[in-house]
């Protein structure tokens, strides 16, 4: 195992109202190196908070996150002495994650210089290497972000992340902001880079079709908890948690057409307030299978078949 997330909790205090948001409640994940974990869930489920913790941008309130046995925070601090950063993050919006006044070449070379990764006279060559790795022409070096298309900008963001020579890449909705016709290209690029560089991915998305396309393992999150975990085949083709089932049913599917009945409501209500979490199973208020016991007993993941974990007593 390479990435070990153990019993991680994250709380945010709202000072003005003196309340606490439970962003993550007891997350446990083991991810072998070279594999891709897809994390799917709706807004507020904690998927981006998890991304910030895994990349070391924030510290967990409780629990630990380790990469190959070393805590993420130390790993990233140590990275300066070993000249490497282990984990890198690619954001959703390539418009806001690039400095508009910095040329593409400088945006990439900055990373190489900060981490002191190659000799000074080799920086230029390395930038060219990275650009070609993500499928961009070398002459883009002298351009500014506004002169690039959305797809090209996201490729630059990926090149910047790769410049630090990470082994784990956290991709937070990397294709959501892109035009539909260019998404496929970026997804295919991610597949190629994974194969070529032996990268481990955490791929975060609200789009199950994208999760299904790239993931080996899939975690479904709801209100700061993982409610289902398993291989992509298990979770997406044989979902056991009522929330996963509802999510899959609600996914707009272009292969099913002209069937207005398919729009029938799958889930009532909305995600509850994370400040006042419901008692028992957090999903019971919206669940079609809920029993009175669900309002009382909190659910934790249990194995229902080999490596397929579900947090539901009815599953």
């Amino acid at each position, binding site marked *: 195992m390479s990435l070990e997330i153990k019993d991680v909790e994250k709380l945010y205090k709202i000072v003005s109202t003196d309340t606490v948001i439970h962003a993550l409640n007891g997350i446990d994940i083991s991810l072998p190196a070279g594999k891709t974990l897809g994390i799917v869930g709706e807004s507020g489920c904690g998927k981006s908070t998890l991304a910030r913790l895994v990349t070391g941008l924030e510290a967990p309130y409780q629990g630990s996150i380790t990469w190959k046995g070393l805590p993420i925070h130390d790993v990233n601090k140590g990275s300066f002495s070993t000249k490497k950063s282990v984990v890198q993050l690619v954001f959703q919006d390539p418009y806001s994650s690039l400095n508009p006044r910095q040329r593409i070449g400088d945006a990439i070379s900055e990373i190489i210089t900060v981490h002191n990764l190659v000799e000074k006279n080799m920086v230029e060559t390395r930038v060219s290497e990275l650009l070609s790795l993500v499928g961009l022409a070398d002459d883009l070096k002298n351009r500014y972000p506004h002169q690039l298309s959305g797809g090209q900008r996201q490729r630059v963001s990926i090149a910047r992340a790769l410049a630090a020579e990470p082994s784990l890449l956290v991709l937070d909705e990397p294709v959501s902001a892109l035009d539909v016709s260019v998404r496929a290209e970026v997804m295919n690029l991610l597949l190629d880079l994974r194969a070529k560089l032996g990268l481990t991915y955490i791929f975060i998305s609200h789009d199950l079709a994208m999760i299904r396309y790239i993931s080996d393992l899939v975690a479904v999150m709801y209100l700061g908890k993982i409610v289902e975990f398993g291989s992509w085949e298990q979770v997406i083709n044989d979902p056991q948690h009522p929330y996963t089932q509802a999510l*899959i049913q609600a996914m707009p599917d272009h292969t099913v057409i002209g069937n207005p009945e398919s729009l029938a409501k799958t889930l009532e209500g909305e*995600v509850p307030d994370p400040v006042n979490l419901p008692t028992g199973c957090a999903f019971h208020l919206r669940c079609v299978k809920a029993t009175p016991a669900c309002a009382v007993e909190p659910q934790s993941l249990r194995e229902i078949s080999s490596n397929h974990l579900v947090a539901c007593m009815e599953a």
Partner: protein
Amino acid sequence: MTQPLLLSVKDLGISTVQDPRTLVNQVSFDIGLGEAVGVVGESGSGKTLSALSILGLLPRGVEVVSGSVTFKDKNLLTLNNEELRKIRGNEIAMIYQDPMTALNPVMKLGKQLLEVIASHGGINESSQNQVRALLSEVGIPDVNRAMESYPHEFSGGMRQRIMIAMALLLSPQLLIADEPTTALDVTIQQQILALVSEARKKRNMSMLWITHDLGVVANLVDRLNVMYAGRIVESGTVEEIFRKPKHPYTAGLLSSLPTSTGTNRERLTSISGVPEKPWLVGNSCGFAARCSRAQARCHSEVPPTVITDNSSVACFFPLGGN
């Protein structure tokens, strides 16, 4: 078309005012009474501008340069602002992607909704009940409390429901929806789609639904226009477009989408390159540079729109022949 015509857009052209640049070119489509038409396209394809021009809502610096928009027997493009105002919200209503920017943040909901009625003929004793009935039809819990609340007190999904209630308030014959579910979570999106679908059936209302997501319209609309670089490149029934796409762009778009079901994961077929700017297309097919079927002709001539029965395609070398 079997239904009588409600709206007919003919040869619509939209361009920037200064340094004229074509944004929408020769767009023609019809919406029958009670019919739902979807418009699919990527950013910059002209789908939103075409819809905004129907209600005379084009942003400053952009103008209609040709064509007509006939609603019932009136050409909307020739009406003055006062005449248009009578139609907006009353006969043609619109819902937007972001309800927070469409609602007044400092006015209680009840007042905002009543204002819609007041501005189109006046409030009477039944108006309050009319507002209440619609709020509960769109699934707002505790309607009395909602009437006394401000927009920020609601979630994104609830705000979109309120926008829909506002749009339906005066029983419009045509609802224009510009990506109203794009910012919502999928389970909430599903709820909104079900709600709109139901409300439309009940009222036999026509609809123009704009989206970039083919999956969203697959089960919502009767017919579909596919836009690319400012033109409609293909139109047809949902069945035709999804099962037998004729334009290489439509076909490419469909095969580049991953599916959310099934057991195999084949590599996605991608369309190389980026969408062309409408004003740079000139005398060529806007898709030619990215098209695997393109020949010399596609780079030097604009393919005419060929209409057969209920469908049309603008391509010299369509899939499945002409």
